[in-house]
């Protein structure tokens, strides 16, 4: 029996046992419901990329690397650069991950992180225009290296840090001069996602892997300082009031993370 099937069967029992501890207002790892695990950020890890960062939330570790190439623009936006986001769940990151093409979870995560970055308009794609039919394209590669739960938020934190670390390469004769730069990308806003799950009647922020296995509803909300820039409900359902509460939590958690990012 594969782990997925076993999980479904076991989740009811696990949820029950977890509910026992949750009823005391605490989670298995000692956190309160609104508490995130410790977050660390390290910038400039990959020197072959024009910007990079590794973010950890607890043991969950995600690398984001940004690389530029000269590309053709999209037909409907001929004067704008392009942003392409891709995520890989490395098979060494979890016993669940198998090598192969991206599955629906990694695709969803890449699209949610991309949506937050794009909506926040923190990358000035208009400045990426070079000449007719040639623009700068930014590849944002998300590598989940260790999954102890909530790789989505770790990916978005690493993405924001990588944007802070990214420099625009020098372009000469419509070609990139590798190793030379015109200046920092300088994102004006820092979009960050906050993922919250519902177990029984409790909403928990930053689910651990164990909590992810018993969740009934999962909600990811991307924020900048003043706006909601992305929302994604995965499993389950929630009420209007619950959603508004979660938005408040997302702003608070997002702002805490933004403080951390600006400090480093």
């Amino acid at each position, binding site marked *: 029996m594969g782990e997925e099937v076993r999980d479904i069967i076991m989740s009811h029992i696990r949820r029950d046992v977890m509910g026992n501890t949750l009823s005391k207002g605490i989670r298995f790892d000692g956190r309160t419901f609104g508490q995130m695990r410790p977050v*660390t950020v*390290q910038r400039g*890890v*990959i*020197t*072959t*990329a024009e910007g*990079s960062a*590794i973010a950890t939330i607890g*043991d969950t*570790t995600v*690398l984001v*690397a*940004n*690389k*530029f*190439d000269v590309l053709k623009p999209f037909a409907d936006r001929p004067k704008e650069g392009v942003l392409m986001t*891709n995520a*890989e769940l*490395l*098979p*060494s*990151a*979890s*016993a669940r991950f198998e*090598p192969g*093409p991206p599955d629906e979870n990694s695709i969803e995560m890449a699209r949610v992180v991309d949506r937050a970055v794009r909506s926040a308009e923190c990358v000035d794609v208009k400045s990426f225009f070079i000449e007719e039919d040639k623009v700068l394209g930014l*590849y944002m*590669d998300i*590598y989940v*290296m*260790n*999954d*102890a739960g909530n790789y989505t938020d770790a990916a978005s934190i690493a993405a924001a840090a990588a944007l802070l670390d990214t420099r625009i390469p020098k372009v000469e004769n419509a070609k990139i001069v*590798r*190793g030379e730069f015109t200046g920092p990308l300088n994102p004006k806003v820092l979009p960050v996602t906050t993922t919250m799950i519902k177990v029984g009647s409790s909403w928990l922020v930053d689910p651990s892997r164990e909590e992810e296995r018993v969740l009934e509803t999962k909600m990811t909300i991307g924020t900048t300082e003043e706006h909601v820039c992305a929302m994604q409900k995965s499993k389950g359902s929630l009420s209007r009031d619950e959603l508004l509460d979660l938005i408040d939590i997302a702003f608070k958690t997002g702002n805490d993370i933004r403080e951390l990012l600006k400090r480093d």
Partner: protein
Amino acid sequence: MGGKSDIQLIVNGKRTDGRGMEDLRDLRIEVGVLPEADGSSYVQWGGNKIVCGVYGPRECIPRHDASPYHALVKCRYMMSPFSSLEEHSRSGPSRRSNELSKVIREAFENLVIAEKFPNTQIDIYIDVLQADGGTRTASITAAAVALANAGIPMKDMVAAVAVGKAGETLALDLNKLEDNFGQSDMPIAISHRDRKILLVQMDGLLTKDQVIEALDMAERGCDKVHEVQADALKRFYEKGEKEKMQW
């Protein structure tokens, strides 16, 4: 391996990066960097940054591949699309990564005591985050440490290094420039106690005498690499506190 070029790889007896013929580039190894995996390691060698995760022995998938006599050793070597200084490359396997996965697997098939775990598989996952010449030897060096960290029984440890020819001089641990413009490249993996050659490949032109000299150099190089592996494992198992990982 490139052809002739104007680049002088050896000037006044020193290489382009100032090293002597038998000096290794800076080599740093960390153990247990991926807590989810059964064993893991991180190798920073020159400009190479490689992470390795090991799982197993675990259920063999697909079932019909399984052997009732021993564990299957599987290996996936992959380069990230951001690993080179040049363009962003396509994600996914290439013919080169396919070949490297095979020869690396074949190195470890010699060491893993697979008969202890019939009907199972052992997975070695190697991801090159940043490449700078010599990724396959760095990968084997990383995988040996990750397998040890996973508690998978092995007959020996193994280290790997490449010997190349720059001009007419043999040199150890080629950097990217030397790899591209040198006259020969011979990556080799040698087991520590038994001195068995578990991987050897070669291109370019070498006389038999040069091969002999290269093998001697490689043994000395592998011993140095083994020191770093041993030190990394000792540091990991001696400390009780979890230190913050600096990538």
